């Protein structure tokens, strides 16, 4: 354990954690744009610069490990001036269109601009302007809004193991890009979308469907596979408009393409919302009671006539463990046969 002081407050943290970690554990706020505790430290945005007593220049809290006896100052006039300059510089190269941006209200850059009260900008100048929009099916990439925090690049490499994107070019117009500036053609897991602090990366299906403040969040479990990733459905005007996952879940907030983007079926008119019973050669909507009664009646009749082994049950990996447990229980104990299986096997 290391003893240190942050802003005069004495704290004890485990050896080897970063100064940013130490501050977070003690509810001391340090602004960040490029840090994510789930990724390797980057040290690119420079917002987390803090002063350590005895060091000649400010250091980044996100990359510097604590050492015994460190005396840290997370804020002072010079540090705040630098942070403000950094936010101002970012805004000087950012489209000023928060009013129509899907990310508004959920954007770290916007929040920083608000807290630093940046109304006018000393550095108005050339902005990066890119016309090309990416034709890929899932991810809207608006690189004019990108602040080059490098989170998407790192998540794709470190978490997804894919390396589908990297920074290309140098100087002012350095840009996050797939190889040869082609359209994105990757796994479309959307981890990058989930981690982008600005409106540079958005799910294409979500654009224009409602911003964060208008959304009702519904916690649930992804039904695509037995992994059981936790998902949060974002519901706006009675429509699921986006799927995210919280970092404090079993899946640490990461999803696959199905969980993240495969939700449009929910709102498709052809989707069945009630049971159907075939009457006179045609499917007719029925209530659950009606349908279950019919099934019970038919299964009972088959069992009576041919014995329980004439019946078999197949269930689905898209059901939860609990549902699958109940299903095999029903087949084995209720029907009385071992003819039960599902796509991921019991």
């Amino acid at each position: 354990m290391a003893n240190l002081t942050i802003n005069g407050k004495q704290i004890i943290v485990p050896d080897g954690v970063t100064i940013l970690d130490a501050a977070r554990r003690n509810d001391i706020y340090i602004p960040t744009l490029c840090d994510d505790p789930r990724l390797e430290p980057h040290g690119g945005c420079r917002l987390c610069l803090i002063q350590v007593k005895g060091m000649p220049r400010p250091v980044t809290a996100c990359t510097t490990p604590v050492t015994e006896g460190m005396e840290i100052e997370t804020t002072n006039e010079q540090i705040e001036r630098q942070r403000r300059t950094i936010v101002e510089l970012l805004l000087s190269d950012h489209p000023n269109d928060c009013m129509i941006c899907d990310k508004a209200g959920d954007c770290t850059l916007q929040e920083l601009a608000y807290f630093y009260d940046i109304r006018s900008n000393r550095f108005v100048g050339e902005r990066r302007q890119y016309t090309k929009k990416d034709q890929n099916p899932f991810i809207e990439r608006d690189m004019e809004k990108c602040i080059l925090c490098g989170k998407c690049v790192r998540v794709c490499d470190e978490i997804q193991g894919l390396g589908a994107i990297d920074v290309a070019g140098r100087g002012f117009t350095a840009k996050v890009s797939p190889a040869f500036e082609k359209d994105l053609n990757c796994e479309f897991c959307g981890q990058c979308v989930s981690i982008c602090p600005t409106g540079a990366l958005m799910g294409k299906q979500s654009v224009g469907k409602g911003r964060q403040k208008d959304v009702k969040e519904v916690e649930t479990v992804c039904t695509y596979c037995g992994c059981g990733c936790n998902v949060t459905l974002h519901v706006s005007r009675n429509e699921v408009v986006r799927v995210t996952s919280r970092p404090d879940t079993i899946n640490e907030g990461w999803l696959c393409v199905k969980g993240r983007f495969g939700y449009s079926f929910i709102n498709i008119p052809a989707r069945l919302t009630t049971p159907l019973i075939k009457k006179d050669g045609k499917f007719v909507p029925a209530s659950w009671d009606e349908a279950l009664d019919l099934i019970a009646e038919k299964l009972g009749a088959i069992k009576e006539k041919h014995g329980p082994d004439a019946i078999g049950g197949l269930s689905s990996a898209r059901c939860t463990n609990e549902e699958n447990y109940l299903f095999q229980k029903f087949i084995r104990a209720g029907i009385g046969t071992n003819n039960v299986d599902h796509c991921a096997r019991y």
Partner: protein
Amino acid sequence: MNKDVSIKVCMGTGGIAAGGVEVMSTFEKALASVGIKAAVQKNCSMHKVGCRGFCARDVLVDVIIDGTKSTYQYIKPDMVERIVQEHVVGGAPIGDWLVTDDYHTFHDKQVKVVLSDCGEVDPEDIDSYLGRGGYEAVKKVLTTMTPQETIDVIKASGLRGRGGAGFPTAVKWDMAIKATGPKKYLICNADEGDPGAFMDRSVVEGNPHAVIEGMIIGAYAIGAPHGYVYIRAEYPLAVERLHLAIKQAKERGYLGKNILGKGLDFMIKVKLGAGAFVCGEETALIASIEGKRGQPKAKPPFPVQKGLWGYPTIINNVETLANVPYIIRKGASWYAAMGTEKSKGTKVFALTGKILNSGLIEVPMGIPLKEVIYDIGGGIENGKKLKAVQTGGPSGGCIPANMVDTTLDYESLSKVGSIMGSGGMVVLDETDCMVNVAKYFLQFTQSESCGKCIPCRVGTKRLLEILTRITEGKGREGDIELLESLAADVKTSSLCGLGQSAPNPVLSTIRYYRDEYEAHIYEKRCPAGVCKDLLSYSILEEFCKGCTACTRVCPAGAIIGEKKKPHKIIQDICIKCGACFETCKFKAIKKG
């Protein structure tokens, strides 16, 4: 007649550019043809030698007859025949073509350590280096010294890193010897990205074996079995000679397994860089060797803790390493006797700009700038006045003319707001605009920023924009203060040395030439007459003879007037190229 004749042709990049290859082949042919008649061929040898510093006079050729050396300058292939006939055969040097006195003053105040064998040895022949004491230092170290003793000698010599920061080499090596782990790496940094710099290039081209020898000694000292030279692909000749030298050193047992039978294993790989300035920064260089994007990382961990592929790594500059064999051979006290208290030895500079004798020079640390400019450099071109000297390239600053007494050592340079850097030295005269100079360097650093951190990527862009508008006559009140404030923030908040030092040229020119900035902003005037948008050319009627010379050279057709009557420039058409100004014999054209 059985003379011992040796001809040395300067074959550095400058020499080759000036036609060294043709000069050399013409010599070969001419000697062969007289050889049949005069039979001088037997003792005659031809050498390619590397850069000898005086690039302005290329192609330089030494003709050595029985030990007497005569040096010719500006030699073209068609001059060779006469040299062979009159000098080699006839024994009479051609006086008019020999180097003049200033060739000797150019060399007199120089003290050559790193460059001592450049221009003397044939860089493509290991025997030539061995003949001048090459690899003696490796033998000495391997047979008589422990690694710690080797480091102690370097410590006593006071050698500091020549790559820019001037970090004591022995301290670095000491940290590496203490680092433990299954592997260690020694990397020679030959990226040399500063615009206009060619020090390291000349050393590798002129004497690659010295760099290799320095690396072997370093590897022995820190216990690193693997070495890399990271060199930019734009240096094809240096790369070629380096490969050849490594091959030769390996054949002779100076590289590879069990070197000289003393149990040391060391091999060097060459890694080509793609010419990014930022890849000279240690952590970016390591990333580049690992095949990643050349982008710096936050330190700690330092390379000596966790470097290439995660192993302890030491990175040294070419010149630093090339000093090492000489220090080992001649001793620490010999080296430490040169220079000042804290800056020992010599430093190589690439002297360029408005100087008479431009070229590669090596001077003892602590030499007054004045002596470099006037004695070695021969003063300012075209009799103009010295305005300032820029050192340290895009990370450095300017030393104004009234401070030419400043001595060249790490401490004095930083005191006046500049840096030693890797050895770029650009001489500026009264026709150089300091705002424009700052703009030039910012253009470079901005386009070379890796883009990882915001203050550097966007900050240098904004600094450049402000400088640009000042030179375009669109400067605003408050711009100087804005530059100062932004420059300070970029310096303190950038991640790597590139961003941290990029504002230096701005801050240093504001510090010494604030009045020039003010003239641009408030009077819309460029005192040096450089910034086109602030210039206008007009004809002074009282001097104009109506000779029409200007009308004829003006590419825009902006000058009207009848013969023998005063002419006039139509301002809307004038493109400010200055052709009329250069042409008028009667000083009738006013610039301003």
